[in-house]
């Protein structure tokens, strides 16, 4: 299989093989545990109906819990989305932007958006890219 998604791959990106493409269920997220430069990073992977794979942070900024992979996948005006399972905020899976805060404010210190991660699918194997030690973004989006 060829590359499906490859967003903003910087030279410093560190790629981690996560799972087989077939391990991912269509429109149902899966969490992955990666080793980041500053400690473990939890990522939520989503396989869409068109077989694209997108990755965002697993931490729900409004709940402070690692649950984003367990939200419902859908679309909003054609944009693929995930709804947080606890308080139902809706995020773009492409940009990580929060499209609907559902009347809540994020937890102190957390931005109302999700960090996104580049994903590669090659030969049926899914890899997720983390910014390297010199990368600008932290493991999770901070305010």
């Amino acid at each position, binding site marked *: 299989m060829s590359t499906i998604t490859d967003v903003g791959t910087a030279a410093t990106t560190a790629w981690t093989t*996560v*799972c087989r493409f077939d*391990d*991912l*269920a*269509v*429109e*149902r997220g*899966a*969490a*992955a*545990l990666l080793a980041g430069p500053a*400690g*473990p990073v*939890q990522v939520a*992977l989503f396989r*869409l*109906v068109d077989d694209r794979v997108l990755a965002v942070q697993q931490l*729900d900024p409004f*709940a*402070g*819990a*690692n*649950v984003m992979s*367990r*939200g*419902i*996948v*859908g*679309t*909003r*005006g*054609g944009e*693929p*989305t995930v*709804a947080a*399972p*606890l308080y*139902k905020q*809706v995020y773009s899976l492409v940009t990580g932007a929060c499209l609907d805060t559902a009347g809540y404010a994020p*937890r*102190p210190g957390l931005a109302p958006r999700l960090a996104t991660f580049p994903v590669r699918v090659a030969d049926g194997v899914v890899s997720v890219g983390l910014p390297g030690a010199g990368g600008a973004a932290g493991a999770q989006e901070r305010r």
Partner: protein
Amino acid sequence: MVAQRLVEALRARDDAGAWRVSVFAEEPRTPYDRVGLTRYFEVRDPEELALGDPALWDDPLVTLHRDCAVTAIDRAARTVTDRLGRVHPYDELVLATGSRAAMPPVPGNDLPGVFVYRTLDDVAALRGWVEAKRASFPAGRPVRGAVVGGGLLGLEAAGALTTLGAHATVLQSGTHLMNAQLDHGAGEALRRLINARGIGVRTQTVTSAMKPHRRTGHVGRLEFADGGRLDVDVVVVATGVQPRDELARAAGLETGERGGVVVDLACRTGDPHVWAVGEVACIEGRCTGLVAPGNAMAEVVADRLLGGEATFPGADTATRLKLSGVDVASFGDAHAGTPGAVEVVWADPVAGVYKKLVLSDDARTLLGGVFVGDATPYATLRPMLGAQLPGGDPSAFLLPEGGGGAPSLELPDDAAVCSCNNVSAGAVRAAVSEHGCTDLAGVKACTRAGTTCGSCLPLVKKIATAELERAGVAVSSALCEHFELTRAQLFDAVRVADLHTFTEIVERFGRRPVAADGTPGAPGRGCDICKPVVASILASLGNGHVLDGEQAALQDTNDHMLANMQKDGTYSVVPRMPGGEVTPDGLIAVGQVAKDFGLYTKITGGQRIDMFGARQEQLPDIWRRLVDAGFESGHAYGKSLRTVKSCVGSTWCRYGVQDAVGMAVALELRYRGLRSPHKIKLGVSGCARECAEARAKDVGIIATERGWNVYVGGNGGFTPRHAQLLAEDLDDETLVRVVDRFLMYYVRTADRLQRTAPWVEEVEGGLDGVRAVVLEDSLGICADLDAAMARHVEGYEDEWRAVLEDPVKLARFSSFVNAPTTPDPDLAYVPERGQLRPATDEEKRSGAAVLVAGPRLEVRA
């Protein structure tokens, strides 16, 4: 009926009391609703068919002479003579003698077992005959009925025969059913619907003779002009009506060519002191056998008697057949007889739908319409008769609701919306804009619109909704951006179209965004609103395990993990304890599981045990232990039956009069796993002391000395409600049937996240409406509801046991796709009152918390 309307109108407006009214009725009862005659088979109580406010007949200015037919009119002396020979003087005389059922001159039409279908006595006699026939037959031998005449009344009669458990065949001399109101295509669609109800139809069949059974002498066989025959045990003749104009003829009043007393547009006969209204009146050259024109005539005469100048507005020949499961309506120029008229037809033979609009030659002005199988556009379009339709494409009005989005109609303020109570569109709007009504129930109470037959309710709702929107109150029945339909509409759509996956459903019924150039795009992929709704609908319709295939992606996280997500992302686990009954061994097993997995335990309000803090990768292990100990899923995570709470009942309690626990256990086992629009809770109390707090439940059952009382629509929560009495003193079997139907009716028709209390309020007719549907089968859907519940009971499986047996489903419970058994390293707990609870952010930062796993601590054992 029309006489009743006349008296009602006169008494309502004659403030001065100028008129004293005497009503002479041939039948020995107060006027009743003949249109609803068929309902008599269901309600079996003539009182139920009473028309209007019975207090009308107690009015000192109104005298009702029952069983007192008038036999002669003396116009010169202005008197009438009744059947007892009494002479009554009059100032003004109104003839409202109606019509009689026509009997074709066929040999044998006077045989025992041949009935007409006109009065309550006819209907009661028919019922008695069918029941006597069945009693005389060996078990299993059906009573065979035939109905001569395939019009409105004939179909009602056929429906009545099937309600009585008899076979029915409709014999229609014309080419298709209801040929006065329907075109051929619609007639054929109707035939399919009628056939689907188990009623036979023979068209182009003229009955030439009725033959007696050789032993009984009762009617036994019909012979047809084409040589065909049909063996029968009962025959109903419904071939039309003849005006009862004999009194008028004898009094020398002019009658029409085909009968009826000739009147002008003021409903006055040739004699200025004699009027005629209803079916006996020959107005504009003809008689009509429909109630609406009759009522219009009654209003005209009432107005004239009070010095007004009203004239007959023209016969509204719109008709609607209200046969359960068969929706037929027709209005205006249904046959497209207007020169140059064009017809727009939408037919879906698979779904049994045929809809047609008749338009003027420029395809703009609405001239008429025919609807079979889906008459939803009827209420909206009928008031537009003779007006221009907005929007470019009239076919948009015929597409299934929510499919294409018919342009919204802006009815003029004076358009009649509710013809039963004469409510205009303007009055409905005023209810919102001036009287502050914000929902349908308020508008109904304020205007009385839709409180009689209810057929205009969709239109009333639409107008009120439009007015609310204008006032800036947001109301949309659309589920979300992906579906224009409500949950109830989507439920029916999925059920009828027999769809089984989200993809199929969104492709067929989803909203397609329209691009700038007007081309519809692909539907979206749903969202957290519509996907759980579709999941629930599919589950209610029996589509296998909730985690099967694509269905798994529709489930809310709780349904997906078959557990309840808590604030830190772990889950709580609730095994079912039917009726709140649990054995000591069961309690020990639950306790041991909680202890081994370090779970916080608490007793729930529904009389069972909740265990908190289970990580998703632990759920299968926990459940393997619970299933081995004999427990099954408690569905605490689902929009589904939660618990049936009970008191200890007559088994132990000295006050109990019934076995409350036994009933609660039976009900919980029956309804376990039933997916619904919202959670459902039941309660059973063993006596009137009500220790189970059953009236705070969606269905509350309270024991009486004679059986069980059922209350519905209660809940705690944000808006606490007491359940209302639905039925009294039921035996066990009837109780279960009533609850079956109530729950299934709710499951099918409630909105998303609508609990039973608001649903009961919104059902047409409120609690009475629910009672009519589940106890009297007023919609004819009870067999269907019963079957659906039977399928549910039969198809039940423990969701957790099924997961444990399926490696594919088990894989869903991994914590990480690349580390399936590694716990979330961020989970942290602190002890409190001897158990663990999630740590606060402060406790995590200060290091007071016990991390479940991660860099600093090893995984807890």
